[in-house]
């Protein structure tokens, strides 16, 4: 059996709300194998994004254990190589053009070289934006921005791609195209994918599907 790419055990997270604390996650367990795709659905406020942030190492659980490839090191420098993230609101840097936004992920690892620039161009070609690589985010449509964000997330060849409602700001047709792209690229590069979505159709396309309900993942 191959080593687990990502392993979460009994993750718990609560947030203060007035005098009391609201328990969002009540012991989440999740294992992910290499190249696997997982979808997580749930109602608004069910804690999907919170779980994704914990899995990305952006936030710490109140209790529980998270490991990436068996290691508990989920710090910033490791995150740059291990995890790629795609957000509902794209989060492109407005001062940088599409190519510079993609290369920004690589800059986190050190100075750019020719190979990095070549990879950024290849990724932009793969997401169908080779001709628009020098356009600023403000000159791109919502779908195009999300495709740039996908290319950026894959720039450092991460082991896991975490997508938080990546179609939330897109129309149905563009959303379909972005999901197609995400699943296709992850399958081609054997990148693990965790997709948080409201859409049952998109969720169904993952190899394993979960529902986050009352702070627990249900298979």
């Amino acid at each position: 059996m191959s080593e687990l790419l990502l392993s979460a055990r009994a993750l718990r997270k609560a947030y203060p709300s007035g005098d009391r604390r609201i328990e969002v996650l009540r012991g989440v367990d999740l294992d992910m194998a290499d190249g696997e795709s997982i979808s997580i659905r749930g109602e608004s406020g069910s804690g999907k994004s919170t779980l994704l942030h914990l899995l990305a190492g952006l936030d710490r659980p109140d209790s529980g254990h998270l490991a990436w490839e068996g290691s508990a090191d989920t710090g910033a420098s490791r995150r740059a190589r291990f995890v790629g993230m795609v957000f509902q609101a794209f989060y492109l840097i407005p001062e940088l053009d599409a190519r510079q936004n993609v290369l920004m992920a690589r800059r986190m690892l050190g100075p750019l070289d020719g190979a990095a620039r070549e990879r950024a161009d290849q990724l932009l070609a793969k997401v169908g934006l080779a001709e628009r690589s020098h356009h600023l985010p403000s000159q791109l449509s919502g779908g195009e921005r999300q495709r740039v964000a996908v290319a950026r997330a894959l720039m450092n060849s991460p082991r896991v791609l975490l997508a938080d409602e990546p179609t939330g700001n897109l129309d149905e047709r563009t959303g379909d195209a972005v999901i197609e792209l995400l699943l296709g690229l992850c399958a081609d590069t054997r990148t693990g994918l965790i997709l948080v979505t409201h859409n049952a159709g998109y969720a169904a396309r993952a190899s394993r599907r979960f529902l986050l309900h009352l702070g627990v993942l249900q298979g």
Partner: protein
Amino acid sequence: MPWYLYLALKQLFPSGRRLPFFTLICVLSVALGVGLLVVVLSVMGGFSFELHRKMMDVTGDVQVRASDFVREPAALQAVIEKVPGVLATTPFAEGYVMIDFERRPAFPTIEGIDTTRVRRVFPIDRYLIAGSFDALDDDGVILSSQLAASLGARVGSRVEVYTPLIVEKLKADEVELPTELTVAAIFEVGHQQLDSSTVVVTLRRMQQLYGLSGEVHGINVRISPDIDADQEADRINAAIGLAQRDGRLKPAPGLAAKSWKQVNRDFLWVLQLEKNMMLFILLFVVLVAAFLTMSLLLVLVLKKTREIGLLSALGASRRQVALCFCLQGVGIGVAGTASGLALGFVFGHFRNDLVRLLTSLTGSQQLMERFYQFSQLPWHADPKDLGIVVFSALALSTLAGIIPALIAARMNPVEALRHE
């Protein structure tokens, strides 16, 4: 280039887009402060430089005096002139007199000079505004401009000079009549005290007026321009000490050389204090610019909250996020300081045209020349002053970036990503 420097520069100066308003305002505010400091300090430096030059012209580079009189001026001059770096010497005697012209009295200081040697030490002709130095003989006198104006005397006028010797003789029941001298020339140095009450006569006449028999009050010394006056004064003192020990000079109480800086120490201190105060006060302009930069950077941090969350998601550490915003403060400081220096020097280049335009509009050109004795605005940019301005502007801009940088670094990435 590290990503935080790259992003800081891109956010300040994005390529292919207009300069952001934020950058423009911050850079401009620092530039105005730095430009103002450069202009004020350089103009003050120019005035100060001119004053120093005039002081050296009036007192020489080094002055040798005794507690009372120098009784062997020729021997002393011979000793001083052998010191390496000394170009020329001239003796002088000084005191107070009463001058009367057409029943208008004045009480100026009087200076007796050696007309054959004085030009080697002082560029006296440079300051003459009427008459000729060559016309000065034992029956002549040179008046300072304001004194001549207050007496109503002109070149050729005959003035009466009363000395303390007349009073001394009266006490002994002797009568000595005042000396009548002809105004040979009128000078103006541009120094209020000198121009308002100074008269110059020949050394012989001065010695006669004061009853001196060959004694003088001191020796003025001109030295090579590439030598420090303080060090040369020390060398002259050493030479005088040696000459007194080996008998070439008789011991004279208090005989010592002082540089022009030591002679005018109090005045130079006031000038320096004035300049330092101006620097201190004007630095507040840069401080205000730094506060503006800080407040705009704080707004930028709030505006970029979600990007800060994104940078964390991409693998940025808190230290790197802080550096990204702190470097924007540094970038503003560098751009603002460079622009301010350019602005200041452009003003410096065209200063006389600007002053001419201003004075012609207000009709005050003659007034300015009369009060400041400068037909052109003096300018002297001291590298040390510029260094202080550059360092202060860069330091304050960097400090202005630190608080927004710390706020950005302390942001929780998850909350930043959720920021609306």
